[in-house]
């Protein structure tokens, strides 16, 4: 901060400093008025009444509202501007979805009400399941996984359960490309599988020959992201699927990038046996600073009987929530993946988006997402460095060779973008290219926004090449906090406030 920016308060105009709630408390203040419960009959507490206060601060409502308002102003969201975080799909979150999720007839429901009193809620689940099945061409969907990684694990559990049921329990090896999300190997490990990496070819796709060489009767499945994490469609996907199936293994697809192909490609037609769908990416539910998400997982006919509990089935005139395996004799659920019946609040939002878009709008959204990424790729190709030729799908990948000998790193470049009013792209992922910059503009962005972004990125690239490394190292300068010491945070963890 320069001298001229210093203030007595530490505030800088609209950039307001805000203490922790624990530093703002004033015993006796209260922001929730509750009636006096009268004397407490302690007999029924099993002799376990709390001995000491919790230690929470007391505040009144105006302070609390101001606290969180000020905190919110230190955040960048999609509502603030372009958020081209590759692989994360930061698209516009419609406000209608928020409105309908708050209808008391949907929000104020308990998961254990008698089923006759929640037929509308079961209809929400069933309708969304129908859309997901038709859009993917798959016969079944496990609705309850809470996020993408949770869906991966769900799909792999179904695959493991299938193999065990067929006397193929020795199939424990899972093939995972080097470019995969870290969740893929981690999910495989949770199912008792070992992970065997497969290399990519120079064009950024799976090396089919290398894959075939790794196949054997101990392989449980392949886990492949498609479009892959380099933003490329796997051109040999049909051959990959055939090879996997011939080896008696399954084809699991990480559906993080399903948003590129919705309405244009059904994953059943690619030979995929299971795939999770990140509702918070493809179907525009808010990321909320890190969740909640939802990861419904579509399953092939072979895997469908192993889907986890609970699930919704048609039952005469109504819908029935099946909570126990014994209710459906032909089912062999591998278990239960979470409490209750899935991320219902997320289902409502996703379904509202889907009903708004319709089949035509969903297809147009995929097309526009791919168009926008290709536009960035085409317009930035000369100024940055793209390791793979286009067309790309919904995201475009650059490496850091354009920064060679400038002294500027991918990180510096990203931080400079922050001062320009943009959220950075994904950095250093995927791991298969050096200093990766992965940009996913999504279909929500107008051409004007993209043109502005292109001008800024191009300007920064020229500036870096002109020898402004020291300047880049100082970025960001205009944020509530500048670069933070992550090494200190890890070496000496302070994970909570203490008096």
């Amino acid at each position, binding site marked *: 901060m320069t001298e001229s920016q210093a203030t007595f308060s530490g505030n800088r105009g609209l950039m307001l400093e805000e203490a*922790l*709630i624990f530093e703002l408390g004033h015993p006796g*203040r209260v922001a*929730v008025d509750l009636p006096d*419960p009268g004397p407490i009959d302690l007999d029924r*507490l*099993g002799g*376990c*009444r*709390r*001995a*000491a206060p*919790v230690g*929470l601060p007391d505040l009144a*409502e105006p302070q*609390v509202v101001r606290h*969180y*308002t000020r*905190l*919110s*102003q230190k955040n*960048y*969201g*999609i*509502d603030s501007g372009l958020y081209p975080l590759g692989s994360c799909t930061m698209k516009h979150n419609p406000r209608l979805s928020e409105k309908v999720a708050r209808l008391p007839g*949907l929000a104020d*429901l*308990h998961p254990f009400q008698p089923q006759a*009193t929640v037929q509308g809620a079961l209809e929400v689940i069933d309708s969304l399941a129908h859309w997901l099945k038709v*859009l993917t061409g798959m016969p079944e969907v496990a609705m309850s996984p*809470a996020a993408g990684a949770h869906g991966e694990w769900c799909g792999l559990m179904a695959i493991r359960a299938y193999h065990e049921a067929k006397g193929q329990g020795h199939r424990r090896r899972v093939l995972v490309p080097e470019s995969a*999300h*870290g969740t893929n190997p*981690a999910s495989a*490990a949770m199912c008792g599988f070992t992970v065997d990496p497969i290399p990519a070819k120079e064009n950024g796709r799976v090396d089919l020959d290398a894959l075939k060489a790794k196949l054997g009767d101990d392989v449980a499945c392949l886990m492949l992201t498609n479009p892959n994490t380099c933003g490329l469609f796997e051109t040999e996907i*049909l051959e990959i699927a055939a090879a996997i199936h011939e080896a008696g293994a399954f084809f699991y697809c990480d559906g993080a990038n399903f948003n590129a192909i919705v309405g244009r*490609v059904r994953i059943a037609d690619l030979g995929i046996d299971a795939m999770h769908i990140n509702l918070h990416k493809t179907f*525009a539910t*808010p990321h909320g600073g*890190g*969740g909640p998400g*939802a990861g419904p997982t579509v399953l092939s006919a072979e895997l469908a009987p192993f889907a986890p509990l609970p699930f919704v089935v048609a039952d005469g005139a109504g819908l029935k929530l099946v909570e126990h395996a014994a209710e459906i004799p032909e089912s062999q659920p591998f278990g239960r993946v*979470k409490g209750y*019946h899935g991320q219902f609040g997320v289902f409502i939002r996703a379904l509202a988006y889907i009903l*708004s*878009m*319709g089949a035509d709008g969903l297809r147009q959204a995929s097309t526009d997402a*791919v*168009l926008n990424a290709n*536009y960035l790729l085409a317009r930035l190709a000369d100024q940055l460095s793209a390791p793979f030729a286009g*067309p790309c799908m919904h995201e475009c990948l650059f490496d850091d060779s354009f920064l060679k000998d400038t002294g500027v790193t991918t990180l510096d470049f990203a931080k400079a973008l922050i001062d320009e009013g943009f959220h950075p792209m994904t950095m250093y992922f995927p791991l298969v290219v050096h200093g990766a910059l992965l940009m996913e503009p999504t*279909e929500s*962005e*107008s051409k004007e926004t993209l043109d502005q972004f292109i001008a800024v990125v191009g300007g920064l690239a020229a500036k870096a090449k002109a020898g402004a490394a020291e300047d880049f190292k100082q970025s960001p300068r205009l944020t509530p906090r500048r*670069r933070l010491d*992550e090494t200190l945070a890890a070496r000496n*963890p*302070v*994970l*909570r406030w203490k008096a």
Partner: protein
Amino acid sequence: MRYLPHTDADRQEMLAAIGAPDAEALFRDVPAAARLTKPLDLPGSQGELEVERAFQGMARKNLSAGCAPFFIGAGIYRHHVPAAVDQLLLRGEFLTAYTPYQPEVSQGTLQALFEFQTQVALLTGMDAANASMYDGATACAEAAVMAARVTKRHKVILSGGLHPHFRATTETVLRYTEITAEVLDPDPLGFEDLIGRIGPDIAGVVVQNPGFFGGIRDLRPLAEACHQAGALLVVAVTDPVSLGLIESPGAMGADIVVAEGQSLGMGMSFGGPGLGLFATRDKYVRQMPGRLAGQTIDVDGRRGFVLTLSTREQHIRREKATSNICTNSGLCALAFSMHLTLLGETGLARLAELNHAKAVRLETKLKRLKGVRVVSQSYFNEFALRLGDEADAAQVVEALAARGILAGVPASRFYPDYPELAPVLLLAATETNTEADIDALVAALEEVL
């Protein structure tokens, strides 16, 4: 289409810049055989008005809790959420942000998570908490895995007082790991002998307090037995409001505390999304799953917050990570934290007392009914009733629903294979219940029984 800004002219101009004849050309890497050429059998786009009408139609097919005397708990609780919570939660900077990977533009989320972690640690009586898990059940499963990781042992004991969904989720997570679970029968009376089962092979004992059937137990003897045998005590909580009145698991010796945080800030939402709370001792922090916010300084020396200790996590460690979890329940954690901030020490204590008082009131009136017996020896805001030896609690609940009363959950919904539990009904009362609600339930139950 209101969410898509491009006009056809924009698209043409962009395709020209790309050098592609049409949008189809951008999809040329998709094998021709796999490209959809015909429209799918699905409806087309709709305006806000039509979509909202569709949801109102579905909403009308439900009996919402606010329209009925309501006494259902069993892990999801109906509490009043102050209006400020939802208004603040809808601020776009919170709602539409991603995981705070870029700390300079995410200090709002990061500071809020740091405050949340502190609140959870204080409430549970533990040293540290993570930035949340999917829900209480998955947090419970992760705790069992962590207990095995810490102790390098391969067996856990799951109490019969554990929520059946927590139990089932944990069993599922362990299914294909080296860890086995000894699962005890449902235990409405709290008579199970956990201490007698603890041996040198036990990684951890997982109990719930208050238990699924309501009972509160002093966990100190169990904690002592665990620690003598080198095992960890994992304590699950399904309504954190209870911790405003009863002793924290940490104060009673727990090593890991997991909880469902839904009851603060979020409403019921048919049971999802939930909020998994996860807290532990300092010495186990590096074995913990999930994201963590930590305090640090920026280059100007000012206090700030970052995600930290990420070498535990999947994006760094891949198959050797403590968990595959990537997403947490960020917005739900924020809602929880806002509600708890609004309550404060004073408000939480009063809310907890009020819940207990309502439940005592309910119990007092119900136990006067002929044949009805209270099973739970102790409780916070939920208890189990035995409706008489011949009664079928499931039928009673259906009969009361037909009269517009949502009267708890029959134990048989979770335990269809235990006929002795058929007459058992779980009932919860919170600050949202009025005296008229209680009287309506008592009168209707008297008629039905």
